């Protein structure tokens, strides 16, 4: 559309006049294009076979769960001995300490003395004091008691490391420790 720039007769409002130009063609064609897109989109997703958002989600969830399952079977649960071995690895304990400092302090105190969660330095355990038991508690959490599950949050390295660190706290007797909870671990 070329502009004629002709003033329209009788169109004057407080001195403002209007020109007789047409619609810019890129503009009107762009408008038609969005309408076309809207129609096709609606047709495919609402009337046709397009997947609903929830369908798309379910697919991605299934793929995710399969991937996790194959990873799990490839990586057997650590045994008591394997975990005990990492206790002797100072690198592991150090990594565990840094995980503990960022994720656990809020509830178990900076020295494991307890607070919102129980004291981790005594010999009393609610959910058992074996390394595998601690691993299970940390990994799966105690949902209705407010201990979060860390299995999906920590990496495969971090998880045994923080267990090793927790184990290293036993017997440290920090000041202002919370009273023991649970049962005494067998020697």
């Amino acid at each position, binding site marked *: 559309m070329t502009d004629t720039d002709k003033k329209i007769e009788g*169109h004057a409002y407080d001195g403002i006049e209007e020109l007789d*130009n047409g619609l810019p063609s890129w503009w009107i064609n762009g408008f038609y294009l969005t309408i076309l897109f809207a129609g096709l989109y609606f047709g495919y997703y609402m009337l046709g076979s397009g997947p609903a958002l929830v369908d798309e989600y379910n697919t991605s969830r299934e793929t995710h769960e399969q991937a996790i399952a194959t*990873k799990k079977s490839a990586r057997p649960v650590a045994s008591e001995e394997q975990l005990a071995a990492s206790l002797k690895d100072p690198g592991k304990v150090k990594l565990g300490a840094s995980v503990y400092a960022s994720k656990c302090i809020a509830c178990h105190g900076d020295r494991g003395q307890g*607070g919102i969660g129980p004291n981790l330095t005594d010999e009393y355990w609610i959910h058992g004091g074996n390394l595998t038991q601690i691993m299970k508690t940390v990994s799966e959490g105690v949902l209705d008691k407010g201990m979060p599950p860390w299995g999906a949050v920590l990496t495969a390295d971090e998880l045994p490391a923080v267990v090793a660190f927790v184990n290293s706290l036993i017997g440290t007797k920090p000041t202002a420790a919370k009273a023991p909870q649970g049962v005494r671990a067998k020697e």
Partner: protein
Amino acid sequence: MLHDEQKMETFSYDDAIVRKFVLATMVWAGVAFLVGLIAALQLADWRFNFNLPWLTFGRLRPLHTNAAIFAFGGNAIFAGMYYSTQRLLKTRMASDAMSRFHFWGWQAIIVSAALTLPFGITIGKEYAELEWPIALAINIVWVVFGVNFFKTIAQRRERHLYVAIWFYIATIITVALLHVVNTIQIPVSLWKSYPIYAGVQDALVQWWYGHNAVAFFLTTPFLGLMYYFLPKAADKPVYSYRLSIIHFWALVFIYIWAGPHHLLYTALPEWAQTLGMIFSIMLWAPSWGGMVNGLLTLRGAWHRVGKEPVLKFFVAGLTFYGMATLEGPLLAIKSVSSLAHYTDWIIAHVHGGTLGWNGFITFGMIYWLVPRLWKTKLYSESLANVHFWTGFTGIIIYMISMWSAGITQGLMWRAVDSTGRLMYPDFIETVLRIAPLYWVRAAGGALYLVSFLIMAYNITKTIASAPKNVKADVFQAPRLAPSSNQNLGDKPHRILEGLPIVFTVLTLLAVAVGTVIEFVPTLWATDYVNTGSSIKPYTGLQLHGRDLYVREGCYLCHSQMIRPILSETLRYGDYSRAEESMYDRPFQWGSKRTGPDLARVGGKYPDLWHFRHMMNPRDVVNGSLMPSYPWIFRDKIDFAVIPKKIAVMKFLGTPYNEQELALAEATARAEAQAVAASLSAQGATGKLEDKEIVALIAYLQRLGQDYKKGGVK
């Protein structure tokens, strides 16, 4: 007859009212920008909350948005509308008294907003926070404004309505419709009410309102102003009358449908989401129609843009409008929304629109108006140029920082490593990463405020130099003969422009279509209110705690709507279902995640964790920027109001039985005792059973529990 028709009438315009609105615009702009800057600083460093209830972020943000939109934006459009309407219709406003009522009524509403929002008196729906007595006052003032406006049209001396007037008509009737429908609520007391809609339905109505407040409060009236002030300032004819027609009707018809783009991936039925998305995409061209018509009107005047601050502001304002209305449809695409929603990208988007478009059009208009209204010259053109460049820089800094913050955080939220583990499982990590950008944003905002102060100085000086007692100009024009098809014109739209009532009815129809099609199936459907499911109403104490959550504006930082997106369900738990919020009045889905989603936070932490966290979030989460809430630990629960709340909820359809109502207060006290006892057992000290914190914890611990226990069906 003929003789009569030609008889000249003498009249003058009411410019006193325009001067009043201009001054009010200036005053409230300062307030809105300052409060915005404080809120920005609060996100950069929590200490700017000062541990004071009335200064805390959750209460200040509504004050900022209301001041910016309704006080600054509102007074600006009224100033421009009163000035241009009288001239475009060649008549004085129908009633000076009504104009004054409008002015003082509006200022009184703003003042009452400033006196209630900081005290936590809020409905809790974004941009419609003002409690029911004020909401009612808004309706009344708006109707008076509308009556005055339409009576002015009735006594016009110009046969046809100019495009600016079309936009004003659309504004007046649609805003009335939006506000009335969205604020139907039942009072519990003078300063507390519950909306009649709940959950999904409340969400739909709220965002139909919220989105169209942007459309019909921040877009159509400003387009009207642009159509008057830009050709006036440039002294050029409007580029295309045809474009005006097409983009006006397309805009008015399409805009109203787009609300659900605020609710993509939520529990809103998907057909409504899809309508919201596709209509948003179709909105791009109609929006750009306004920009194009404005910019092309400046052909032949571009050499003046560099020199004249008024034109500079208009050009930049229109360009920001163009940017925002391209970005809007983009953000409304579902996959883009999945990244951008809940992040600071949206904050960047709205500030491009408000600071750039609304702000700059207003500033340009005021620089043009003030010398004319006060019959003097602008004190300093160069200061106006300085204003422009500082303000412009401020906007750019603001937008770039918030774009980066939003995209960075959105990508961090969704990052999943090869083992299927979230790469940033700790929400706070994603906050700390973008925290420096909150400082940059605050700097951008500060610059904009400074630029405005330069303007305030310039305008003050200008007005001070004005002659005292300016006399209003007197004009003459013949009165209109009664209309007949002949003298209206030969083209259909031209005829329509001479028939204001028909024009108004058609505009109303245009906005009614989308409204009805989206509302009827959603409001009448019972799928979202399945009282047989495992979702049960809140207990009295939880309900009270919920009101505290609303009072403190927690919903401005926290969503309660987990989207069906893998990274999201990994982080927060199963996605939210519509039924879960069926007893929520107002709904609490939220729109921004400065903090994590809370839909399933119930049971995630021990009571004591919340206790410590609310006292000072940094005691349990290093680096948290959430405010501390010490007053919740001091203030007592008003147990006596709980039965009234239950009664209103029951009246609205929540299935409480007579016994629950009769025993409401005693039950709530017993519940509070139980929570307090659990807190004490975990090690909290103090007399807690009558403190608000107990109610808040009861509410937080309930969130998501019913669904976890029993699913929805």
